[in-house]
């Protein structure tokens, strides 16, 4: 009995010794978590750079398809109607709203300084340089970008893009290039329209809300606008056109996993292109204003 009592004691002691010499399993946990996070980060970075490479090649192919513009003029025309004419209402609504709001708020602020006559100047600068093109870009990112993402995503999922390739048609030349050309052409007049509508609504609010004579308002606008103000605003149109079209089309082409995949790629296209539009808006303004 005595021997039997000793055995468990010896065994327990040995166990205690062995656990004392090796780190407790729970000590491994943070290391394992760090290692798995590290692996995850490396994989995500690898994915990111691969996607960037694919996007670059995709964009290059879209630009290199420009000589086929004449062959696909009907598609260019159709896309110009979609991103241009059909987008006029949403561009007008956003420009008119923001122009009116800007006139009310800036007018109230200027009134405190007794400088209400400068309302035309301040709203014109804000609208032409920043808000007109930016709002147009964001609206088209939502409207034209989402359409591209969903349409091309659905075509990808239903193998229509593979069918184009299988029968000898370059899908980028047929589907992406016309959208890019149409956006490059139509974003300029849409920016002009957005600026015009924003200023008109600001002038209307200046007259009816702040009781500023239209002559005073417009006199503060036109003589004081410099060429660089227009360059800043209108240079953004082609930049936004390239960003919105290529990002949304690339995401459409990358759609995988059925209808849910189309939804994911469309959302990704809108989010990424909207973010890039905001960043590009800042840098275009900064670069042009610093150099002109």
């Amino acid at each position, binding site marked *: 009995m005595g021997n039997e009592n000793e055995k468990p004691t010896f065994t327990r002691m040995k166990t205690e010794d062995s656990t004392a010499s090796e780190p407790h399993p729970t000590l491994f946990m943070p290391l394992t978590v760090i290692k798995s996070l590290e692996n995850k980060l490396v994989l995500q970075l690898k994915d990111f750079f691969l996607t960037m490479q694919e996007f670059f090649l995709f964009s290059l192919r879209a630009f290199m398809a420009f000589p086929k513009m004449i062959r696909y003029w009907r598609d260019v025309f159709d896309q110009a109607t979609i991103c241009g004419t059909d987008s006029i209402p949403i561009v007008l609504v956003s420009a008119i709203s923001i122009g009116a709001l800007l006139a009310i708020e800036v007018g109230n602020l200027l009134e405190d300084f007794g400088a209400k006559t400068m309302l035309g100047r301040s709203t014109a600068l804000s609208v032409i340089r920043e808000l007109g093109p930016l709002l147009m870009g964001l609206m088209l990112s939502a409207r034209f970008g989402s359409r591209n993402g969903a349409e091309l995503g659905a075509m990808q999922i*239903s*193998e*229509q893009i*593979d*069918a184009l*390739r*299988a*029968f*000898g*048609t*370059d899908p980028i030349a*047929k589907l992406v290039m016309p959208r890019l050309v149409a956006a490059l052409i139509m974003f300029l007049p849409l920016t002009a329209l957005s600026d015009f509508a924003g200023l008109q609504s600001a002038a209307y609010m200046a007259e009816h809300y702040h009781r500023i004579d239209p002559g005073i308002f417009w006199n503060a606008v036109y003589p004081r606008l410099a060429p660089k103000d227009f360059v800043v605003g209108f240079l953004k149109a082609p930049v936004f056109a390239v960003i919105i079209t290529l990002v949304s089309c690339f995401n459409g082409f990358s759609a995988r996993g059925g209808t849910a995949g189309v939804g994911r790629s469309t959302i990704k296209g809108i989010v990424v292109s909207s973010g890039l539009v905001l960043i590009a808006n800042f840098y275009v303004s900064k670069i042009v204003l610093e150099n002109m």
Partner: protein
Amino acid sequence: MIELRNVSLKYGDREILKNVSLTIKDNTIKAILGPSGVGKSTILKLMLGLIKPNSGQVIVDGTDITCMKERSLYSIRRKMGMVFQGNALFDSLTISQNLGFFLRENLKLPEAEISQKVAEQIQFAGLEGYEDQLPESLSGGMRRRVAIGRALIFKPHMILFDEPTAGLDPVSSKKILSLISSLRHNNNLGAVIVTHIIDDVFHVADSVAVLYQGEIIFDDVTEKLHEAEHPFIRSILSDKILEL
């Protein structure tokens, strides 16, 4: 003739095809049989050069297309017509526009000649009166026939069918299989049929390759399939439809 030599393909870590070798001779109908998701459709896409293998060669009429650039592949692809599983008809175009799409896109033919070729295919597919309808207004069987007509309009040497009877009712399936059989007899066309329905194989195919877990486990004339001893083939012969 289409040849796959020791083709292997991976999607990420998943090995889809392992050392697959296949030969499809002209004027014959070859079926590729296997359960869903095993990589059968991938073989068709490899034959068209739509995807590239990780290793091995794809040879079409003596030309190695494995490393060919997209632009050079267009002339090779015109030798083959493809009928996609979901038909891949352009949903914004009418039936006749779908049929004439690639003639207008790729060949500088007079409009009268295109219209004549489209009319021929409409008649072949038995779709008179539906020329101006959109694909969505047609039944599954009709859409499949439009897809076959579209693949035939180039007068290819070989047609690739991805699950030609999947999702169709028995009557439509029978019509499609008869249509495929008639292609070889009337047009001297070869065909590759990817399917998971074993009855389709016995109905139209001269030879059959069975793909299982990324490998070809049987490749011989259709009649010899009954003699195969592989447990998977034995099981599919008793079950008829593969739902694995």
